């Protein structure tokens, strides 16, 4: 934080000196520049505000009159009865797959890269590979999901099911989990490890008892962010074959394992489908579904940001 402190402390002196050097003239272009920069920031924040207000007011008519009905209802072509329950259920299972698959594998890979991997060709290739994977468009992961988990492994996943979708999204966020976890592990001071080795602990014991607990907040932040990403993603699900229309099978409970091999939909898919309908009622429904999705995603994001800020402050 050296940069901040210097600027913060040096501000007064610097400004006084600068004014003297300019001979007391006003710095018009400097002020204008600052105003332009501030305007860029304000416009960005204004867009965010307009978006949130627009969605909220648009969905209010649905959320205020039949909230419970909307959350528990199933997809229907009649706007006054349609609800998002199946979407929530699909998104819930996708989140579960992400947690069960992407988190352990991603954290494991990060531990290997940071703690074990010597600077060999293998580790360098893995490293470059992961950074490239993180930049692959999500729709391409959809192709992977379709070719591998729907077609090639269709006997196991049941084809276009929530299981295929969940595995696909777990793979999509895996690079993000690895990169953020690796950063958190890299930030662990070396003397912690050396102390562990010094008392005879094995490498894994040092990792398990010293490195991971220290890096936990950072890892948790990354995983929560990646979970939010998985929940908001729609394009791969369309490729994997989420139902964009009427979904049979009715309700069924949220956590029933049997539905893992059923056709599915998810909240972002519901939003996409409804956004494509021209009727005004569906516009309100779409806004309401967006409010539900944003509530979940932004809650996760906010939690991750708060967590990180808190620990950053503590460590200093």
């Amino acid at each position: 934080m050296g940069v901040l402190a210097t600027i913060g402390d040096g501000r007064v002196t610097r400004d006084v000196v600068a004014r003297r050097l300019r001979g007391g003239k006003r710095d018009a272009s400097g002020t204008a520049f600052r105003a332009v920069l501030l305007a860029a920031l304000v416009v960005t924040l204004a867009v965010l505000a307009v978006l949130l207000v627009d969605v909220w007011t648009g969905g209010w008519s649905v959320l205020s009159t039949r909230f419970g009905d909307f959350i528990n209802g199933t997809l229907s072509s009649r706007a006054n009865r349609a609800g998002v329950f199946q979407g929530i259920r699909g998104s819930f299972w996708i989140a579960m797959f992400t947690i069960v698959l992407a988190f352990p594998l991603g954290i494991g890979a990060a531990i290997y890269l940071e703690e074990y991997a010597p600077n060999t060709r293998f580790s360098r290739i893995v490293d470059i590979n992961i950074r490239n994977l993180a930049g692959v468009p999500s729709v391409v992961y959809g192709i992977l999901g379709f070719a591998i988990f729907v077609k090639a492994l269709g006997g196991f996943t049941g084809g276009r099911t929530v299981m295929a979708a969940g595995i696909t999204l777990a793979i999509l966020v895996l690079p993000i989990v690895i990169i953020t976890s690796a950063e958190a592990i890299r930030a662990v001071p070396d003397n912690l490890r050396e102390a562990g080795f010094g008392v005879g602990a094995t490498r894994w014991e040092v990792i398990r008892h010293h490195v991971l607990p220290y890096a936990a907040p950072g890892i948790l932040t990354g995983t929560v962010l990646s979970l939010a990403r998985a929940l908001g993603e729609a394009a791969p699900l369309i490729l994997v074959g989420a139902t964009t229309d009427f979904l049979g099978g009715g309700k069924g409970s949220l956590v029933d394992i049997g539905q893992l091999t059923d056709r599915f939909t998810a909240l972002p898919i519901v939003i996409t489908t409804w956004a494509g309908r021209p009727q005004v009622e569906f516009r309100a429904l779409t806004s309401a579904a967006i409010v539900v999705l944003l509530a979940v995603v932004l809650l996760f994001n906010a939690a991750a940001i708060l967590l990180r800020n808190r620990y950053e402050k503590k460590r200093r």
Partner: protein
Amino acid sequence: MALTVPQLLGPSLREQLSGTSRRQRRETVVKTALRASAALSILISVLIVLSLVREAWTFVSQVEWATLLDDGWFPRRGLYDVRTLVVGSLIVAAIAMAVAAPLGLGAAVFLAEYAPPRLRRMLKPILEVLAGIPSVVLGFFALTWISTEIVQRVQDDAPQSNLMAAGIGVGILTIPLIASISEDAMRSVPSALREASYGMGARKLTTTVRVVIPAAVSGLVAAFIVAISRAIGETMVVFIAAGATGGSLYTHDPFEPGQTMTAAMAAQAAGTDAVRGAALTFQSLFFVGLLLFLITLALNVAADRVVRRVRQKY
């Protein structure tokens, strides 16, 4: 396990420290498992390439080349004018950058150089909120608000679904990306450079524009390249807001409905129960996917190169 002093001093010290065979076995197992999860990422890459290339090759080897440059993208009718999609993607990316580059860079310069620490701590999380908004939400916003409140006011005969609205939507989505990478780049410029500049009597404006930004230029260029790659790869905003889900005639008018590589893939998969149509409709999906994969990969590698080559070591 607590060790007594005689134990520590005795001949068994080395044995104690090197651990029992059970401990060492566990060590090997853990290491193998971790190594496997790291290697998994390579398997994923291989699978991505394989699943793209197999069907794409079928497409390339069987398609009549004339249909690749003919009358627009209507895969169900056997018309595969790839130009339509590539130009659509370029238009959307260009509009997105026209929106995101000034806003993102401006916000980044303000946060890195001008904002007092406390204001910065308040504003950054808000930008991160914007980064967390799912693209379907921006797609809907682009279709219902940007299109009617901005695009149709400028060009009142534009249809509600158009490339301009989609491009602006994608741009908004990439602002946080540009802002955060650029800000990081500028904040990693050592303060000694700024102080030297002030010491010469330079103003804040001069210092920022002539010293800090040139010093951070590798990061800024990388931010733009990554943002272009992201804009080309963005699917849902275009799918929802640009219309033309059944296929599109060749157009380079941003006020018309149009299609990008990504949206064409989603439209094709969402269309009917199975991905079917004319003989090669199914395979064309993979061909476009491969094209998209190669373009974004090239951009990402380029961004990486820029950072590596131009970066100054302080």
